[in-house]
């Protein structure tokens, strides 16, 4: 079965302008989101994953940064060429976004019900009576499994816990019946047990509503739990892309390998508490400054298998195994 591509990003490059300097936040990023798929984008802070999320929706003001080149196709149509009016019909309507921190994303002076209503009024054309609206809000809150939806509707954001606030955010995002949901670190601000509930909710909603989800995270554990495919980003570009199980069982890029090895895993139980050497395999060095990137492969200063050829030119993303793409000249020859 050929799955329909709902979102395609092609060779996207994005630059921020800061104090006369140009910062290449995204370089040649391509990705494809298929219908009913959860695609994970993993990377460390500053790798450009949030910039990617925001630029897909053109949410970054042009004063601060611009898309330099590339295309973003929503069902075959290039979002970047649309007029502002048409863009509005897609942004927040057919593609919704959920941000990391629910507390700063919700307006503290309005009741949660009002905030959901605002989104409903914006995205649904026909005028609805207050009564209808209330019903819809309750339906949405039930959809995101909010306990006592009728009470929550009248409460202010600060009266809700972080997990509940994130449920409200998801309800707002879903109010327009979107086809694509972009979730930017949706559980980072939450505790693990709550994180689990939100992830379960996202998976369930994806199945129930036929959503396609782009999940942005720094946590490989989350990827393993809910994503079908993963793109690993480093310093503004995608260095590896494959199915989730392929990434975990057969990581090819030295960065992906290093990241997976540097995680304390479940099996590594210390055998004796005292005196025995237990160490993690750390990646040396640190994430490069986006305004001052190294030449060639951006990972070469930290790479354990670096050779001279890595330094002059940035490698291209190549398909090494079927559906497994890697940006490294040391792989596959």
């Amino acid at each position, binding site marked *: 079965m050929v799955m329909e591509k709902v979102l395609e990003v092609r060779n996207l490059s994005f630059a921020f302008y800061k104090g006369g300097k140009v910062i290449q936040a995204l370089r040649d990023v391509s990705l494809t989101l298929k219908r009913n798929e959860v695609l994970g984008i993993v990377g460390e802070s500053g790798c450009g994953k949030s910039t990617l999320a925001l630029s897909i929706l053109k949410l970054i003001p042009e004063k601060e940064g611009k898309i330099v080149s590339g295309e973003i196709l929503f069902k075959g149509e290039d979002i970047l060429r649309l007029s502002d009016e048409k863009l509005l019909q897609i942004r927040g309507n057919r593609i919704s976004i959920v941000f990391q921190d629910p507390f700063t994303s919700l307006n503290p002076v309005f009741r949660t019900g009002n905030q959901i209503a605002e989104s409903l009024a914006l995205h649904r054309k026909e005028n609805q009576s207050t009564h209808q609206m209330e019903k819809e809000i309750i339906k949405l809150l039930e959809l995101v499994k909010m306990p006592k939806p009728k009470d929550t509707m009248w409460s202010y954001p600060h009266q809700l816990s972080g997990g509940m606030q994130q449920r409200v955010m998801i309800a707002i995002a879903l109010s327009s019946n979107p086809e694509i949901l972009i979730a930017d670190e949706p559980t980072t601000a939450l505790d693990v047990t709550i994180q689990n509930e939100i992830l379960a909710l996202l998976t369930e909603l994806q199945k129930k509503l036929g959503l396609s989800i782009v999940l942005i995270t720094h946590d490989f554990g989350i990827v393993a739990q809910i994503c079908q495919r993963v793109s690993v980003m480093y310093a503004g570009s995608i260095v590896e892309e494959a199915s989730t*199980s392929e990434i975990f069982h057969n990581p090819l890029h030295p960065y992906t390998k290093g990241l997976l090895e540097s995680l304390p895993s479940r099996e590594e139980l210390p055998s004796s508490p005292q005196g025995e050497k237990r160490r993690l395999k750390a990646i040396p060095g640190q994430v490069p400054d986006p305004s001052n990137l190294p030449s060639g492969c951006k990972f070469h200063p930290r790479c354990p298998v670096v050779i001279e050829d890595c330094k002059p030119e940035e490698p291209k993303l190549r398909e090494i195994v079927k559906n497994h793409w890697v940006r490294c000249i040391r792989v596959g020859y």
Partner: protein
Amino acid sequence: MLKVENLKKYFPVERGVFRRVVDYIRAVDGISFGIRKGEIFALVGESGCGKTTTAKLIVKLLEPTDGEIFFHGKDISLLGRRELARKIQIIFQDPFASLNPRLTIGTIVGEAVECRLEATGEKVKTKEIINETKELLNRVGLPVNILNEYPHQFSGGQRQRIGIARALAMQPELIVADEPVSSLDISVQAQILNLLLDLRDSLGLSYLLIAHDLNIVRFLSDRVAVMYQGKIVEMGSVKNVYKDSQHPYTKRLLEAIPTLETGLIE
């Protein structure tokens, strides 16, 4: 070495114009535990469970409502701030907020060195301070020529190293590490965790590790206590708690960790 007995910290909830105390938040509600020399003891739990409050009580940044803390058999409430600081140091979660942005690295670490040297009663030479500061920076894996630079010039991982160097300057026996890596990138987390282990081996330090990441706790610590709503619900060796947890909350917490091995969907 460290013994905590029936420690309590209640924060009053005040209402109205006269700030009448209407209730108490029982942040830490009668906990007891001990840390041995050279041991890494972890307190885990979700936000709001009282683990950071416990850390603050141990370094006397907060006064307990009730209960006692003994260090080598001495009640710490009888020790002065400075005296205690030479025995127990703390590393904070956020390396961006815990270093004074207007001081150079040399001053941040050097001040602590000076403070310790002064306590010996002898006259302190500037050269001595500089030398020792350099030695400390070297020990935590930083270049020694950064004395005149400012915190903003460093990455999160480097700043955390500076924080560790400052803590080591007092030559403490116990370091309270409050979420030492949770604000760092994954590839840098491993470096800092390894550094903490190296320091324990070379200096014979003990740690009280405060963390919410159960994978890190399992890797780093010898014994662990699980906190829930201000109480310790389970305590034991890492092996026992992780392999054979008894309390339902611990079980729930362990099941919630997203891991590569269990979570993978096919």
